[in-house]
């Protein structure tokens, strides 16, 4: 039987269409149909000036707009060799880590919802709301923040920024513990996640997985460590690694990543330097002729940006390395042989956002 799952389906996390070939309820073949949200971002970028492209990047992975924006501005900054002040780097670190927690909370809620634990979604949204409030006060927007400018920040942190962030990181550990009491030891949760969608480290690398999905399989790779950007070189944090590479491992890795994000924010807010938040940026942003690739560790994986400049005010070509798009390629490999219910769990565990897959 062929079952058409999506694009209007409650748990494909957007407009993903999955064509399932079923034998009873067992999946024997699977095909993804994407592109329902295609807006031609990379092509649009070729006809915009450098500073104008940043808001488009927010609409890639709209759950993690702050991280997406960062990869764009850092690529341009590094190509131009701009000297971004330390304070801006620290604020970027804090805000992208907050964004990572927000993104992971959304993942946790929807993943749990797909497996049937509805309550976790509402709890996760409660905490995410706190982060979005900080974003709203800092950037003036909650979801698509347009957080950065080339060379620094649009403005310095607002007055209560430090207090708000400290209050949030004070709450989050206990709240994460609450979620873990509902899920981690729950027999039904275990039986739905342990041994589901197992992928070995080698296969994960071969497919090109990145982010928590890769680390769940036990591969030690984190761009924050291997090529520190923003202020991560000054931060002290651990990378959680899974063992079996199943859905449960990826769940644990993301939960632990939220704790580590909290640790990073704590350090950054304690050592937040004073000073300006903007570099001296020329009036006309014209990176030198050449090409450059820069990547950061987004919440869902390695977000990369490959920029080819011909020395004018507009890029000649921009290419995004989309973590969700590449992670989604593992869906077929992970799902075959499992039941329909597991496909839903696996889509959840890969943590995809269709805005970025379709671009």
């Amino acid at each position, binding site marked *: 039987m062929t079952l058409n799952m999506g694009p209007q389906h409650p748990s494909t996390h957007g407009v993903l269409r999955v064509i399932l070939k079923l034998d009873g309820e067992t999946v024997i073949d699977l095909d993804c149909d994407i592109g329902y949200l295609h807006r031609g971002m990379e092509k649009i970028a070729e006809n915009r000036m450098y500073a104008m492209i940043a808001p488009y990047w927010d609409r890639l992975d709209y759950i993690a707009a702050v991280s997406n924006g960062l990869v764009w501005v850092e690529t341009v900054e590094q190509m131009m060799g*701009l000297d971004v002040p330390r304070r801006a780097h620290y604020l970027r670190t804090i805000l992208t880590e907050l964004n990572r927690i927000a993104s992971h909370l959304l993942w946790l809620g929807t993943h749990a919802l797909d497996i049937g634990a509805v309550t976790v979604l509402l709890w996760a949204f409660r905490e995410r709301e706190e982060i979005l409030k900080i974003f709203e006060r800092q950037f003036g927007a909650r979801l698509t923040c347009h957080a950065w400018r080339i060379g620094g920040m649009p403005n310095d942190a607002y007055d209560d920024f430090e207090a708000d962030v400290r209050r949030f990181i004070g709450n989050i550990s206990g709240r994460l513990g609450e979620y873990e009491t509902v899920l981690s030891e729950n027999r039904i949760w*275990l039986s*739905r996640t342990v041994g589901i969608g197992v992928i070995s480290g080698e296969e994960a690398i071969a497919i090109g997985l990145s982010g928590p999905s890769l680390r769940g399989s036990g591969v030690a790779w984190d761009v924050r*460590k291997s090529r520190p950007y923003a202020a991560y070189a000054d931060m002290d944090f651990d990378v959680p690694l899974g063992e079996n590479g199943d859905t449960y491992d990826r769940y644990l890795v993301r939960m632990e990543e939220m704790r580590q994000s909290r640790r990073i924010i704590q350090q950054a807010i304690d050592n937040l330097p004073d000073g300006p938040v903007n570099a001296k940026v020329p009036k006309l942003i014209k990176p030198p002729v*050449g090409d450059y690739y820069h990547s950061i560790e987004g919440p869902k994986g390695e977000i990369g940006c490959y920029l080819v400049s011909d020395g004018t005010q507009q890029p000649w070509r921009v290419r995004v390395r989309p973590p969700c798009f590449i992670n989604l390629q593992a869906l077929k490999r992970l799902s075959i042989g499992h*039941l329909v219910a597991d496909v839903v769990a696996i889509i959840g565990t890969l943590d995809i956002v269709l805005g970025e897959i379709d671009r």
Partner: protein
Amino acid sequence: MATIALLAPLNFVDSLLLKFFSEQTVNYVIWPFIQVGAVVTITALWVAYATYLERKISAFIQARLGPMRVGPWGLLQPIADGLKLLVKEDFIPENADRWVFFVAPYIAVVAAFIVMAVVPFGPDWAVITDVNIGVLFVLAVSSVGVLATILAGWSSNSKYALLGALRSSAQMVSYEVSMGLAIIGALMFARTLSLSGIVAAQASDSIWFLLYQPIGFVIFLISGIAENNRAPFDLPEAESELVAGFHTEYSGFRWSLFFMAEYAAMVVVTAVATTLYLGGWYFPFVYRLTEANGYHNAYVVVSLIVFLTKAGLLLYLYFWLRWTLPRFRYDQLMDLGWKWMLPAALVNIVVSAIAVFVLQALDGWHGIHTIESLSQGLNLTAAGKGIAIAIGVANLFLTAAILSMINWRSRDFNLKKQRSKIRLVDLPKGKPAVAPVNPADVVSEARP
């Protein structure tokens, strides 16, 4: 007492009716109609407000407020919802099997509501009819509900609906087996199939069968939740997998009939569980305080309240579980039904039979007096109750041991050992990417 003042009109109506009709007409036609009307109305309201309570309880579990806009604390929300669904377009998909699609929701509702006819809400006039095969009637009628689900899924002509219907038929059939078997233990102590008789047996013993039958109660409740397709067993309508399961194609009032049927079926299971294991409308001292003093109607009303409270608490358990637990997978559900519930129910029957046998054999042995009389159920003495409860508790351990023996090889048994621990690694830091890069390093080749 205020209740007596409230119930005075009841006797007045009775005498008024007797002036116009013969006594037989009044007793066998008019009053039953009034009873049926009252029960259907009350059940329908109960169902409506069960949805309200579910929304409120789920809201409190989820740190929200729930419906607050329609009426004070949103109290009129269920009525507003009902009206909204009533005036919606009655839509039947083009390729659906029209008549079956049309009939299925009614079967669901009728099957769920008709069970109310035999449920003893209270003594005397609070029960519509006392059938001497009440338990069989309940099982037979409530399993007709499966038919509605299958018909709805099949006639919708949609794959999601079909999958949902297939799941639910398999689920309901397999859990009905263990549900029926779980009841047998309680019946051995009650020595009757009449639901009123079962309550009377518990009342005359002054005990709840829950104490004799802890395993039976747990199996009954779990199977009941599974049979109602409620979370964590709500696979047929698993919204994250099958959109809405068997009623994906339904909308408007026909959909709301399914919704009502689901809640009515829940009410039925809680009512039957209350009757079988929680003593029904029986509560200590109620009889002595009211009926013994001549306040008959007060006795009925207080018993009715007792019954509704007990059933309501069980209903709360339903909501609580639903909003706390994730959902089982289809095959895990079948595992639970056939490998855990069914053996446990069979063990329960054997142990209950042994318990009854022991009680009868011990009666009079070495002066131990266990059974007073066999008039209504097993009329046990204090010693007899102690032995029965002890066997019930021992049964908990026995069942646990037997289930572990059966299932110790299965995947789900040692799930906690299979899961892994994550390890935290402090990776060495690479060359920072943030330091201003000399543009000369960056440029690899000139592009046009």
